[in-house]
Structures are given as C-alpha cells and as structure tokens.
C-alpha cells in the first residue's frame, strides 16, 4: 500500500479534513488529519483499509502545539500505518480511539498523564503509571529533568 492508495480511499470520506498522506520510513505512510475528523478517519482506516490492530498511541510536545500519533498494523497488507494530528497546546483535545480499537484504552491513559493530551469520551481516563493526584506532565518540554519537583501524592485506595 502506497501513500497514493491511502489518499484515494480516505480523501472522499474526509474531504478537506484530510491534510495529506506523506511517506514515512518503514510504514505505508503517515496520514495527517484535522482532529475533528478523528472518528471518521479511525472507522475508515479500520473498516475500509483493514488496519484492525492499534499498536500504540503517543504524544509529542512541539512547544507551540502538540502532536498525537497512532501506529496501526494490517494483517492483510503486512504493513504499518501512522496517523497524526496536531492539537493546540492550550486546548489539547482529541476524540478517543478506544471506541474503534479497544486497545487504545491504556495507551491514551498514558498519553494523557505524561503529555497532557485529553481524549474526549474516553471510558476510563485515570492515572496509569504515575500516582493519583500527580499533577505534572513529565513528557512536556517545560518539565525540566534537573529541577526539583514538589509532589504531594494522595493514597490510591483509602
């Protein structure tokens, strides 16, 4: 599967909300999309293109905005696909993928607590790796490694 094939399938469904498909090393391509199109894109990618396996969800802090990326795998094409969308730093929201791929659940919890991406309609957006009440987003660039943090941790199960 080539980037052009992906555009051919996705462009009619998404229209202008599809920002383009670019080559990406080691995968079928990277699909850039507007976050409003998230759910439509997820369904199209799973049902029309056959990417039934969501491998991971991650966030990148580019300081002026944040990026959410999804890595998918298709058993038929034996290929990976990367989806990527930009969200503003002051409103880092995107629709959850867990209604389409249940495996997104924990990956999104991690991206929420470490990079601060908020996943709308996520069934269970709780802390996973960091303790409850931990208010820092360690994977943001503003979180410096060499400065002490003030931390007050609530007990998990009282």
């Amino acid at each position, binding site marked *: 599967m080539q980037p052009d094939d992906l555009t051919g399938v996705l462009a009619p469904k998404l229209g202008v909300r599809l920002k383009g498909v670019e080559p990406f090393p080691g995968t079928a391509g990277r699909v850039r999309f507007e976050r409003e199109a998230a759910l439509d894109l997820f369904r199209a990618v799973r049902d029309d293109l056959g990417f*039934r396996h969501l491998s991971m969800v991650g966030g*990148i802090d580019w300081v002026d905005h944040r990026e959410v990326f999804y*890595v998918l795998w298709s058993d038929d094409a034996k*290929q990976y696909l990367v989806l990527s969308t930009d969200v503003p730093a002051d409103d880092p929201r995107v629709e959850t993928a867990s209604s389409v*791929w249940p*495996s997104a659940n924990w990956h999104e919890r991690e991206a929420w607590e470490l990079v601060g991406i908020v996943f709308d309609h996520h069934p269970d957006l709780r802390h996973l790796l960091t303790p409850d009440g931990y208010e820092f987003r360690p994977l943001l660039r503003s979180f410096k490694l060499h400065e002490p943090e003030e931390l007050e941790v609530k007990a998990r199960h009282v």
Partner: protein
Amino acid sequence: MSEMWVNMGPQHPMTHGLWNLRVLLDGELIRDVDPEVGYLHRGIEKISEDRHYNEVITLMDRCCYVAGLTWEHLYIIASEDALHLEPPERALYLRVMCDEFQRIASHLMWYAAFVQDIGLMTPFLYGMRDRDLILDLFQSFTGARMTYEYLRVGGVRNDLPPGFTDHTRKVLDWLTARFVDYDKLCLGSDIFHKRCDNLGVLKAADCVAHGVTGPMLRSAGLRRDLRKDRPYAVYNQLDFEVALADSADVTGRYVVRMEEMRQAVRILRQVVDWLDHHPGPVMAEQVPRWLGAPYAPVGKEGYLLKRNYPKGVGFSSVEEPHGEAQAYVVNEGGEHPYRVKFRSPVFANISAARQYLVGYRIADIPPIMGSVDVCVGEVDR
C-alpha cells in the same frame, strides 16, 4: 454472596514483579479485574531526551531485565533509521544471535516461574540452570549477565572471543536435549493439564482488538511474527518456522513458547555457522566520533557529521520474546533524541486482562497470568 475487591499484589508470588492485580470477587468467581501498574516507572522516555543516542542503550537494558539485548536492538534500529546509518553485515548477524539467545533465556525464565506457579518445583530449577548457560555465553562477549550494553548505533561494541562458536554449539546441543525433558515434565503431567487446559481463553479476534501480540496471539492460531512479516536485520536470510497453536488457552501458550525455543536453536545454528565463515568489521565506518566507536575505525568525515544529521523520525519494531515491541524516535538534529516512545508488548497484553480473566476462578489467576509472561520493567518503562 456479596462482591469484594481484593488486591493481588504488589507483593504477591503470582505477580513476578511489582504490579497489582485488583480483582472483584464473588465468592471464588472473578467478576472484574483492574490491573494497576506504574510501581517501576522510571521515566525512561523522559531521561532519553537528555542523553546522547548511545547513552540511551543503557536504559534499554533496564527496560526489560530478561530481554535487554532485544530492547537494545529495537532502539538501535530506530536510531539508525533516524540518523541514516548502515551497520555492517556481521553486526546484523551478531544482533540476531543476541535476539535469539535472549528469546531462549527469556522463555526459560518464564518457564521456570510459570511451572512453579502451578506447583511443579523441579522444572523451576531446570529452567534456571539452563538459562545460566546462556548468561555465561552473554558474559563471555558482553562482560555482563543482565545489563549488557553491547549493541551500538552503527554496529555492535566488539567481536566474539576465540572459541565462542564451538562453545555455543555445545550449549545448543544441550538445550535441544533438555527441551524434550521439559515437555515430558509438563505435557506428560496430569496436574499440568488440569491446571492449564481451557483456561484464560482469548480468541484471535479479541487478541487483535485488544492489541495482544506475541505468543499469546500465536497460541490463538494467528500466524503473525514480525521476523517473517516484516523482516529486520537478517531474518529474511534464515530458515525457521513460526510457532503456532490453536487452543488459545494457557496450554497453547506453553506449546508456542516451547516451539519458539526450538526454532531459536535452529536459527542460532545457522547464525553461528555464518559467523564462522564471515569475519569482518562490526561497526559502520561513517559513525561520528561522538557516537563512540572506540574499537572501530572512524571515517575521515565522521567527525564532521556531528550535529549535521538531517531531521527525521525513526520507527522500528521487533519481535520481542513477549510480543511486538516498537520504538518511535524523533530526531531534531541535535545530539539527543527529541522524543522517544516505546511500545511494550506486555503493556498491551496486561491491559486486556479483563478479557481473559473474568469468568474464571481465583485459583486460576496464577496459571493465566503466568502464561502472559509479565515483565514489569517494560510495562512501566
């Protein structure tokens, strides 16, 4: 009867590491589960942003303490992608050798822990003893038994010591004979079947939906192995089969892992033969000096490459002993990666716990979770 939440962990013999399985019980029946991880979270992805590319390798060993070399390999492929480096062929074969030995060592560790959970003590000692043979081999060429720091961006650190391949063949012969005994001890035992058959069933469609990979997925009959589907290093030049089972239960996972060890031995014999006849460099020549290649020739232009790498993203995935691991390395032109993201296969496998635990009884938890092969180091990172 009323329901109650019970904590199995973080200190519990079943967990094999520091994590907590919260179980909602109705009598003995499991109604719901809520795995809790994070006790071992060290922020490896964050620390990586503050380190040179080669310094991250140290962290990879700590990612999974039973498969350190495989994690090094994962990160190395992604970094070389991002930095546009091409390692020599001998280094690729050495990496495959590390991967496959690590697979056997990891599965032996799993075997030892798993069979002990279901009440067989002797195999535990057998598994640990045979794993030590592999650790001895690792020690002879990396200098360490657990945290190896052997792979390098652009190759591997050093070549093998004299006599290594002959010694390796003896170990492989020994292991081949031992695998027969392992099977007799487990598959020939009624206790084993009573505790494992038809437990923790997770069908292929559920595996895919919940992101489960590795031996758990192959035990459900789905032929998916990155070494075949998307060959990295030199796996496309090696002859081996994908281990499969169709029962999708605990016994199936045992069968798959035992077969994987046999196939790993088969791969290792081919690799060792190749290494005997193809001496050569183990480090790429264009590696810049700051990436550290003390035992390898450094090209004349190497030093100039510093800070001049094109921006880019490296993506890699390897078939780790536990499943499919992925790395996503963003390079912004500096000496440190801008962002590193890892996918841990066990992370996804545990997150599906509700699918394969609910409906069984509390005494079934140790064999089921044992068959998942949890390694907390890579879950929490």
